[in-house]
Protein backbone atom coordinates (compact mmCIF):
# COMPACT_ATOMS: atom_id res chain seq x y z
CA UNK A 1 0.00 0.00 0.00
CA UNK A 2 1.52 3.28 -1.08
CA UNK A 3 -0.31 5.54 1.29
CA UNK A 4 1.58 7.09 4.18
CA UNK A 5 -0.36 8.37 7.15
CA UNK A 6 0.62 11.93 7.93
CA UNK A 7 -0.10 13.77 11.15
CA UNK A 8 2.24 16.71 10.56
CA UNK A 9 -0.69 19.10 10.21
CA UNK A 10 -1.75 18.82 13.85
CA UNK A 11 0.25 21.76 15.31
CA UNK A 12 -0.93 24.11 12.58
CA UNK A 13 -4.61 23.33 13.22
CA UNK A 14 -4.37 23.02 16.98
CA UNK A 15 -6.38 26.23 17.66
CA UNK A 16 -9.23 25.00 15.45
CA UNK A 17 -9.27 21.63 17.21
CA UNK A 18 -9.20 23.22 20.66
CA UNK A 19 -12.03 25.57 19.75
CA UNK A 20 -14.07 22.58 18.57
CA UNK A 21 -13.32 20.65 21.75
CA UNK A 22 -14.37 23.69 23.78
CA UNK A 23 -17.73 23.90 22.02
CA UNK A 24 -18.34 20.17 22.44
CA UNK A 25 -17.59 20.45 26.17
CA UNK A 26 -19.82 23.52 26.43
CA UNK A 27 -22.66 21.68 24.68
CA UNK A 28 -22.50 18.64 26.90
CA UNK A 29 -22.11 20.69 30.08
CA UNK A 30 -25.14 22.88 29.39
CA UNK A 31 -27.07 20.01 27.82
CA UNK A 32 -26.45 17.65 30.74
CA UNK A 33 -27.35 20.11 33.50
CA UNK A 34 -30.42 21.60 31.82
CA UNK A 35 -31.44 18.23 30.36
CA UNK A 36 -31.35 16.54 33.75
CA UNK A 37 -33.36 19.37 35.34
CA UNK A 38 -35.94 19.03 32.56
CA UNK A 39 -35.86 15.27 33.10
CA UNK A 40 -36.49 15.65 36.83
CA UNK A 41 -39.47 17.95 36.23
CA UNK A 42 -40.91 15.58 33.61
CA UNK A 43 -40.29 12.52 35.78
CA UNK A 44 -42.04 14.18 38.71
CA UNK A 45 -45.00 15.02 36.44
CA UNK A 46 -45.24 11.51 35.05
CA UNK A 47 -44.89 9.74 38.37
CA UNK A 48 -46.53 12.08 40.90
CA UNK A 49 -47.77 15.18 39.11
CA UNK A 50 -51.30 16.28 38.17
CA UNK A 51 -53.11 13.71 36.08
CA UNK A 52 -53.94 16.11 33.25
CA UNK A 53 -50.24 16.90 32.73
CA UNK A 54 -49.14 13.29 32.35
CA UNK A 55 -50.25 12.49 28.76
CA UNK A 56 -48.48 15.49 27.16
CA UNK A 57 -45.25 14.64 28.98
CA UNK A 58 -45.60 10.99 27.97
CA UNK A 59 -46.12 12.07 24.35
CA UNK A 60 -43.03 14.29 24.47
CA UNK A 61 -40.91 11.46 25.88
CA UNK A 62 -42.12 8.89 23.35
CA UNK A 63 -41.75 11.27 20.43
CA UNK A 64 -38.17 12.17 21.30
CA UNK A 65 -37.10 8.65 22.17
CA UNK A 66 -38.38 7.26 18.88
CA UNK A 67 -36.92 9.77 16.44
CA UNK A 68 -33.27 10.37 15.52
CA UNK A 69 -31.44 13.22 17.22
CA UNK A 70 -30.45 14.60 13.84
CA UNK A 71 -34.07 14.94 12.71
CA UNK A 72 -34.91 16.72 15.98
CA UNK A 73 -32.01 19.07 15.38
CA UNK A 74 -33.06 19.78 11.79
CA UNK A 75 -36.63 20.33 12.90
CA UNK A 76 -35.52 22.86 15.50
CA UNK A 77 -32.97 24.62 13.32
CA UNK A 78 -34.69 24.58 9.92
CA UNK A 79 -38.32 23.97 10.82
CA UNK A 80 -39.04 26.26 13.76
CA UNK A 81 -38.06 29.52 12.01
CA UNK A 82 -41.21 29.17 9.90
CA UNK A 83 -43.12 29.52 13.18
CA UNK A 84 -41.12 32.66 13.87
CA UNK A 85 -38.68 31.05 16.32
CA UNK A 86 -35.24 32.10 15.09
CA UNK A 87 -32.10 30.67 16.61
CA UNK A 88 -28.44 30.64 15.72
CA UNK A 89 -26.79 27.28 15.22
CA UNK A 90 -25.29 27.04 18.69
CA UNK A 91 -28.58 27.87 20.39
CA UNK A 92 -30.39 25.33 18.23
CA UNK A 93 -27.79 22.67 19.02
CA UNK A 94 -27.99 23.40 22.75
CA UNK A 95 -31.79 23.31 22.71
CA UNK A 96 -31.83 20.05 20.77
CA UNK A 97 -29.47 18.44 23.28
CA UNK A 98 -31.53 19.63 26.24
CA UNK A 99 -34.79 18.42 24.70
CA UNK A 100 -33.21 15.09 23.77
CA UNK A 101 -31.58 14.38 27.11
CA UNK A 102 -34.69 15.64 28.92
CA UNK A 103 -36.79 12.84 27.43
CA UNK A 104 -34.27 10.08 28.10
CA UNK A 105 -33.43 11.22 31.61
CA UNK A 106 -37.16 11.55 32.36
CA UNK A 107 -37.63 7.82 31.77
CA UNK A 108 -34.52 6.91 33.75
CA UNK A 109 -35.35 9.15 36.71
CA UNK A 110 -38.98 8.03 36.69
CA UNK A 111 -37.81 4.45 37.12
CA UNK A 112 -35.81 5.61 40.14
CA UNK A 113 -38.77 7.47 41.62
CA UNK A 114 -41.14 4.57 41.12
CA UNK A 115 -38.74 2.23 42.88
CA UNK A 116 -39.12 4.32 46.04
CA UNK A 117 -40.84 2.31 48.80
CA UNK A 118 -44.29 3.63 49.67
CA UNK A 119 -43.24 4.01 53.30
CA UNK A 120 -40.88 6.81 52.30
CA UNK A 121 -43.78 8.92 51.02
CA UNK A 122 -45.78 8.14 54.14
CA UNK A 123 -42.85 8.96 56.40
CA UNK A 124 -42.49 12.31 54.66
CA UNK A 125 -46.20 13.02 55.00
CA UNK A 126 -46.14 12.08 58.69
CA UNK A 127 -43.48 14.77 59.22
CA UNK A 128 -46.01 17.30 57.86
CA UNK A 129 -44.01 17.77 54.68
CA UNK A 130 -45.91 18.93 51.63
CA UNK A 131 -45.82 16.69 48.54
CA UNK A 132 -43.19 18.88 46.95
CA UNK A 133 -41.08 18.87 50.11
CA UNK A 134 -41.35 15.09 50.39
CA UNK A 135 -40.28 14.78 46.78
CA UNK A 136 -37.42 17.23 47.15
CA UNK A 137 -35.98 15.96 50.45
CA UNK A 138 -37.05 12.33 50.72
CA UNK A 139 -37.64 10.84 47.29
CA UNK A 140 -35.46 12.57 44.73
CA UNK A 141 -31.94 12.12 46.10
CA UNK A 142 -32.17 8.35 46.73
CA UNK A 143 -33.92 7.99 43.37
CA UNK A 144 -31.08 9.82 41.61
CA UNK A 145 -28.56 7.74 43.48
CA UNK A 146 -30.27 4.54 42.36
CA UNK A 147 -30.22 5.47 38.68
CA UNK A 148 -26.93 7.40 38.59
CA UNK A 149 -25.06 4.77 36.54
CA UNK A 150 -27.82 4.65 33.92
CA UNK A 151 -28.02 8.44 33.82
CA UNK A 152 -24.24 8.72 33.42
CA UNK A 153 -24.28 6.32 30.46
CA UNK A 154 -27.07 8.32 28.85
CA UNK A 155 -25.13 11.56 29.26
CA UNK A 156 -22.11 9.96 27.57
CA UNK A 157 -24.34 8.71 24.74
CA UNK A 158 -25.75 12.22 24.26
CA UNK A 159 -22.21 13.64 24.24
CA UNK A 160 -21.26 11.23 21.44
CA UNK A 161 -24.49 12.06 19.63
CA UNK A 162 -23.56 15.74 19.73
CA UNK A 163 -21.17 15.09 16.81
CA UNK A 164 -24.22 15.60 14.61
CA UNK A 165 -24.59 19.30 15.49
CA UNK A 166 -21.82 20.00 12.97
CA UNK A 167 -24.51 19.42 10.35
CA UNK A 168 -26.18 22.73 11.22
CA UNK A 169 -22.74 24.39 11.32
CA UNK A 170 -22.42 24.55 15.10
CA UNK A 171 -18.65 24.68 15.49
CA UNK A 172 -18.05 21.58 17.59
CA UNK A 173 -15.22 19.06 17.33
CA UNK A 174 -16.71 17.33 14.28
CA UNK A 175 -17.15 20.68 12.56
CA UNK A 176 -13.48 21.40 13.29
CA UNK A 177 -12.54 18.03 11.80
CA UNK A 178 -14.64 18.71 8.68
CA UNK A 179 -13.00 22.13 8.35
CA UNK A 180 -9.49 20.76 8.76
CA UNK A 181 -9.92 17.89 6.33
CA UNK A 182 -11.22 20.30 3.70
CA UNK A 183 -7.92 22.22 4.03
CA UNK A 184 -5.33 19.50 4.42
CA UNK A 185 -6.97 16.81 2.24
CA UNK A 186 -6.09 14.24 4.91
CA UNK A 187 -9.60 13.11 5.74
CA UNK A 188 -8.70 9.76 7.26
CA UNK A 189 -6.02 11.10 9.60
CA UNK A 190 -8.17 14.07 10.60
CA UNK A 191 -11.08 11.86 11.57
CA UNK A 192 -8.76 9.46 13.40
CA UNK A 193 -7.56 12.38 15.53
CA UNK A 194 -11.15 13.55 16.14
CA UNK A 195 -12.19 10.00 17.04
CA UNK A 196 -9.35 9.63 19.52
CA UNK A 197 -10.29 12.97 21.09
CA UNK A 198 -13.92 11.83 21.37
CA UNK A 199 -12.79 8.58 22.97
CA UNK A 200 -10.72 10.55 25.47
CA UNK A 201 -13.61 12.91 26.16
CA UNK A 202 -16.04 10.05 26.77
CA UNK A 203 -13.62 8.33 29.16
CA UNK A 204 -13.03 11.63 30.97
CA UNK A 205 -16.75 12.38 31.12
CA UNK A 206 -17.52 8.96 32.55
CA UNK A 207 -14.80 9.46 35.15
CA UNK A 208 -16.12 12.92 36.03
CA UNK A 209 -19.68 11.63 36.38
CA UNK A 210 -18.53 8.78 38.62
CA UNK A 211 -16.68 11.30 40.77
CA UNK A 212 -19.73 13.57 40.85
CA UNK A 213 -21.80 10.59 41.97
CA UNK A 214 -19.45 10.05 44.90
CA UNK A 215 -19.70 13.71 45.87
CA UNK A 216 -23.48 13.98 45.50
CA UNK A 217 -24.30 10.70 47.21
CA UNK A 218 -21.76 10.18 49.97
CA UNK A 219 -23.90 7.80 52.01
CA UNK A 220 -23.91 4.93 49.58
CA UNK A 221 -25.52 2.29 51.73
CA UNK A 222 -27.96 4.44 53.68
CA UNK A 223 -30.28 5.00 50.75
CA UNK A 224 -31.17 1.37 50.19
Amino acid sequence: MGYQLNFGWIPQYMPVLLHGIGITIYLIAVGAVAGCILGIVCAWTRALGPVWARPPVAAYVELIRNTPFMVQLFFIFFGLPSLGVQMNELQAATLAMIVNLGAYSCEIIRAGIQATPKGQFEAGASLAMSRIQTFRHVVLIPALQRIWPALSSQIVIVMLGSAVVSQVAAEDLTYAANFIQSRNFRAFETYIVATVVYLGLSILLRFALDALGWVLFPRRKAAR
Partner: protein
Amino acid sequence: MIEFTYWDIIRNLLLATRWTILLSLVSFIGGGLVGLIVMSMRISKNRIVSAIARGYIELFQGTPLLMQLFLAFFGMALLGFTVPAWLAAGTALILWTAAFLSEIWRGCVQAIAKGQWEASASLAMSRFEQMRYVILPQAIRIAIPPTVGFSVQVVKGTALTSIIGFIELTRAGTTLTNATFQPFLVYGLVALIYFALCWPLSKSSQILERRLNVSHNRH
Protein backbone atom coordinates in the same frame (compact mmCIF):
# COMPACT_ATOMS: atom_id res chain seq x y z
CA MET B 1 -40.45 25.26 -11.36
CA ILE B 2 -42.03 21.99 -10.39
CA GLU B 3 -44.76 22.28 -7.79
CA PHE B 4 -44.70 19.66 -5.06
CA THR B 5 -48.07 18.57 -3.75
CA TYR B 6 -48.37 17.06 -0.28
CA TRP B 7 -48.75 13.71 -1.93
CA ASP B 8 -45.47 14.15 -3.83
CA ILE B 9 -43.66 14.92 -0.59
CA ILE B 10 -45.13 11.98 1.28
CA ARG B 11 -44.60 9.58 -1.61
CA ASN B 12 -40.96 10.54 -1.98
CA LEU B 13 -40.35 10.24 1.73
CA LEU B 14 -41.98 6.82 1.86
CA LEU B 15 -39.92 5.67 -1.11
CA ALA B 16 -36.78 6.72 0.74
CA THR B 17 -38.00 4.93 3.86
CA ARG B 18 -37.38 1.65 2.04
CA TRP B 19 -33.66 2.33 2.25
CA THR B 20 -33.85 3.21 5.91
CA ILE B 21 -35.61 -0.09 6.58
CA LEU B 22 -33.25 -2.12 4.39
CA LEU B 23 -30.15 -0.58 5.95
CA SER B 24 -31.58 -1.13 9.44
CA LEU B 25 -32.22 -4.80 8.69
CA VAL B 26 -28.76 -5.35 7.20
CA SER B 27 -27.09 -3.59 10.13
CA PHE B 28 -29.12 -5.42 12.71
CA ILE B 29 -28.62 -8.89 11.24
CA GLY B 30 -24.97 -8.31 10.37
CA GLY B 31 -24.38 -6.66 13.71
CA GLY B 32 -26.05 -9.59 15.45
CA LEU B 33 -23.71 -12.08 13.76
CA VAL B 34 -20.57 -10.06 14.49
CA GLY B 35 -21.92 -9.33 17.96
CA LEU B 36 -22.26 -13.04 18.66
CA ILE B 37 -18.58 -13.52 17.83
CA VAL B 38 -17.52 -10.53 19.93
CA MET B 39 -19.70 -11.74 22.79
CA SER B 40 -18.15 -15.20 22.79
CA MET B 41 -14.71 -13.61 22.70
CA ARG B 42 -15.67 -11.33 25.56
CA ILE B 43 -16.71 -14.19 27.85
CA SER B 44 -13.80 -16.38 26.79
CA LYS B 45 -11.54 -17.65 29.54
CA ASN B 46 -8.52 -16.65 27.49
CA ARG B 47 -7.54 -13.25 28.86
CA ILE B 48 -6.03 -11.91 25.66
CA VAL B 49 -9.08 -12.80 23.58
CA SER B 50 -11.34 -11.26 26.17
CA ALA B 51 -9.23 -8.09 26.30
CA ILE B 52 -9.38 -7.71 22.52
CA ALA B 53 -13.17 -7.91 22.66
CA ARG B 54 -13.28 -5.43 25.52
CA GLY B 55 -11.11 -3.01 23.57
CA TYR B 56 -13.35 -3.36 20.53
CA ILE B 57 -16.47 -2.66 22.60
CA GLU B 58 -14.87 0.28 24.39
CA LEU B 59 -13.71 1.75 21.09
CA PHE B 60 -17.07 1.54 19.35
CA GLN B 61 -19.16 2.52 22.35
CA GLY B 62 -16.84 5.38 23.27
CA THR B 63 -16.73 7.16 19.93
CA PRO B 64 -19.49 8.81 17.92
CA LEU B 65 -21.17 6.74 15.25
CA LEU B 66 -20.64 9.68 12.90
CA MET B 67 -16.85 9.39 13.30
CA GLN B 68 -17.06 5.65 12.63
CA LEU B 69 -18.98 6.39 9.45
CA PHE B 70 -16.41 8.95 8.33
CA LEU B 71 -13.53 6.59 9.08
CA ALA B 72 -15.20 3.75 7.20
CA PHE B 73 -15.95 6.03 4.26
CA PHE B 74 -12.52 7.65 3.97
CA GLY B 75 -10.54 4.72 5.34
CA MET B 76 -11.87 2.21 2.85
CA ALA B 77 -11.15 4.70 0.09
CA LEU B 78 -7.49 4.67 1.16
CA LEU B 79 -7.34 0.97 0.39
CA GLY B 80 -7.52 1.99 -3.23
CA PHE B 81 -11.08 1.46 -4.43
CA THR B 82 -13.98 3.87 -4.60
CA VAL B 83 -16.39 3.17 -1.79
CA PRO B 84 -20.09 3.57 -2.44
CA ALA B 85 -21.86 5.25 0.46
CA TRP B 86 -24.02 2.21 1.19
CA LEU B 87 -20.98 0.00 1.70
CA ALA B 88 -19.33 2.37 4.17
CA ALA B 89 -22.65 2.96 5.90
CA GLY B 90 -23.39 -0.76 6.20
CA THR B 91 -19.90 -1.62 7.45
CA ALA B 92 -19.83 1.09 10.11
CA LEU B 93 -23.35 0.36 11.31
CA ILE B 94 -22.70 -3.39 11.52
CA LEU B 95 -19.55 -2.87 13.59
CA TRP B 96 -21.29 -0.30 15.82
CA THR B 97 -24.35 -2.51 16.34
CA ALA B 98 -22.12 -5.49 17.13
CA ALA B 99 -20.40 -3.58 19.93
CA PHE B 100 -23.68 -2.81 21.66
CA LEU B 101 -25.42 -6.14 21.06
CA SER B 102 -22.42 -8.12 22.29
CA GLU B 103 -22.43 -6.17 25.54
CA ILE B 104 -26.21 -6.60 25.98
CA TRP B 105 -25.95 -10.33 25.34
CA ARG B 106 -22.96 -10.75 27.61
CA GLY B 107 -25.08 -9.37 30.42
CA CYS B 108 -27.79 -11.90 29.61
CA VAL B 109 -25.39 -14.83 29.48
CA GLN B 110 -23.76 -13.81 32.73
CA ALA B 111 -27.16 -13.46 34.37
CA ILE B 112 -27.55 -17.24 34.12
CA ALA B 113 -26.75 -18.74 37.50
CA LYS B 114 -23.27 -20.18 37.88
CA GLY B 115 -24.75 -23.49 39.02
CA GLN B 116 -26.01 -24.04 35.50
CA TRP B 117 -22.45 -23.93 34.16
CA GLU B 118 -21.27 -26.27 36.90
CA ALA B 119 -24.16 -28.67 36.42
CA SER B 120 -23.54 -28.90 32.69
CA ALA B 121 -19.80 -29.22 33.24
CA SER B 122 -20.44 -32.12 35.58
CA LEU B 123 -22.29 -33.81 32.71
CA ALA B 124 -19.00 -33.72 30.78
CA MET B 125 -20.26 -31.16 28.29
CA SER B 126 -17.69 -29.14 26.39
CA ARG B 127 -17.83 -25.36 26.72
CA PHE B 128 -19.54 -25.15 23.34
CA GLU B 129 -22.12 -27.76 24.35
CA GLN B 130 -22.75 -25.95 27.61
CA MET B 131 -23.46 -22.77 25.69
CA ARG B 132 -25.53 -24.47 23.03
CA TYR B 133 -27.73 -26.68 25.19
CA VAL B 134 -27.85 -25.08 28.62
CA ILE B 135 -26.91 -21.42 28.75
CA LEU B 136 -28.11 -19.92 25.47
CA PRO B 137 -31.68 -21.32 25.57
CA GLN B 138 -32.14 -19.57 28.90
CA ALA B 139 -30.15 -16.45 28.04
CA ILE B 140 -32.10 -15.85 24.83
CA ARG B 141 -35.31 -15.47 26.81
CA ILE B 142 -33.85 -12.62 28.86
CA ALA B 143 -32.10 -11.18 25.83
CA ILE B 144 -35.13 -10.63 23.63
CA PRO B 145 -36.57 -7.43 25.20
CA PRO B 146 -33.32 -5.42 25.33
CA THR B 147 -32.38 -6.65 21.86
CA VAL B 148 -35.68 -5.46 20.41
CA GLY B 149 -35.20 -2.23 22.33
CA PHE B 150 -31.78 -1.74 20.81
CA SER B 151 -33.16 -2.20 17.30
CA VAL B 152 -34.72 1.26 17.80
CA GLN B 153 -31.21 2.69 18.21
CA VAL B 154 -30.18 1.01 14.97
CA VAL B 155 -33.08 2.53 13.02
CA LYS B 156 -32.24 5.95 14.45
CA GLY B 157 -28.55 5.37 13.77
CA THR B 158 -29.22 4.95 10.06
CA ALA B 159 -30.21 8.64 9.95
CA LEU B 160 -26.52 9.54 10.28
CA THR B 161 -25.63 7.74 7.05
CA SER B 162 -27.26 10.63 5.18
CA ILE B 163 -24.19 12.68 6.10
CA ILE B 164 -21.85 10.48 4.06
CA GLY B 165 -24.33 10.58 1.18
CA PHE B 166 -26.46 7.50 1.58
CA ILE B 167 -29.92 8.45 0.36
CA GLU B 168 -32.42 7.38 2.98
CA LEU B 169 -35.25 9.05 4.86
CA THR B 170 -33.31 11.95 6.39
CA ARG B 171 -31.43 12.65 3.18
CA ALA B 172 -34.69 12.63 1.23
CA GLY B 173 -36.07 15.06 3.79
CA THR B 174 -33.15 17.44 3.23
CA THR B 175 -33.50 17.18 -0.54
CA LEU B 176 -37.25 17.80 -0.38
CA THR B 177 -36.72 20.76 1.94
CA ASN B 178 -34.34 22.29 -0.56
CA ALA B 179 -36.92 21.83 -3.32
CA THR B 180 -40.05 22.90 -1.46
CA PHE B 181 -38.78 25.40 1.15
CA GLN B 182 -41.09 23.81 3.71
CA PRO B 183 -38.71 22.50 6.38
CA PHE B 184 -41.33 22.51 9.13
CA LEU B 185 -43.65 20.23 7.17
CA VAL B 186 -40.98 17.99 5.68
CA TYR B 187 -38.92 17.41 8.82
CA GLY B 188 -42.14 17.00 10.79
CA LEU B 189 -43.18 14.23 8.40
CA VAL B 190 -39.71 12.68 8.52
CA ALA B 191 -39.93 12.60 12.31
CA LEU B 192 -43.39 11.03 12.14
CA ILE B 193 -42.19 8.28 9.78
CA TYR B 194 -39.27 7.48 12.10
CA PHE B 195 -41.73 7.45 14.97
CA ALA B 196 -43.99 5.03 13.07
CA LEU B 197 -40.98 2.74 12.55
CA CYS B 198 -39.55 2.94 16.04
CA TRP B 199 -42.52 3.20 18.36
CA PRO B 200 -43.89 -0.31 17.67
CA LEU B 201 -40.41 -1.67 18.37
CA SER B 202 -40.09 0.26 21.66
CA LYS B 203 -43.58 -0.74 22.69
CA SER B 204 -43.11 -4.43 21.93
CA SER B 205 -39.84 -4.38 23.83
CA GLN B 206 -41.70 -3.04 26.88
CA ILE B 207 -44.49 -5.58 26.55
CA LEU B 208 -42.03 -8.45 26.13
CA GLU B 209 -40.17 -7.29 29.20
CA ARG B 210 -43.35 -7.25 31.28
CA ARG B 211 -44.35 -10.72 30.05
CA LEU B 212 -40.94 -12.07 30.83
CA ASN B 213 -41.04 -10.62 34.32
CA VAL B 214 -44.32 -12.39 34.99
CA SER B 215 -42.87 -15.75 34.04
CA HIS B 216 -39.82 -14.90 36.11
CA ASN B 217 -41.90 -14.19 39.18
CA ARG B 218 -43.65 -17.54 38.96
CA HIS B 219 -40.43 -19.48 39.46
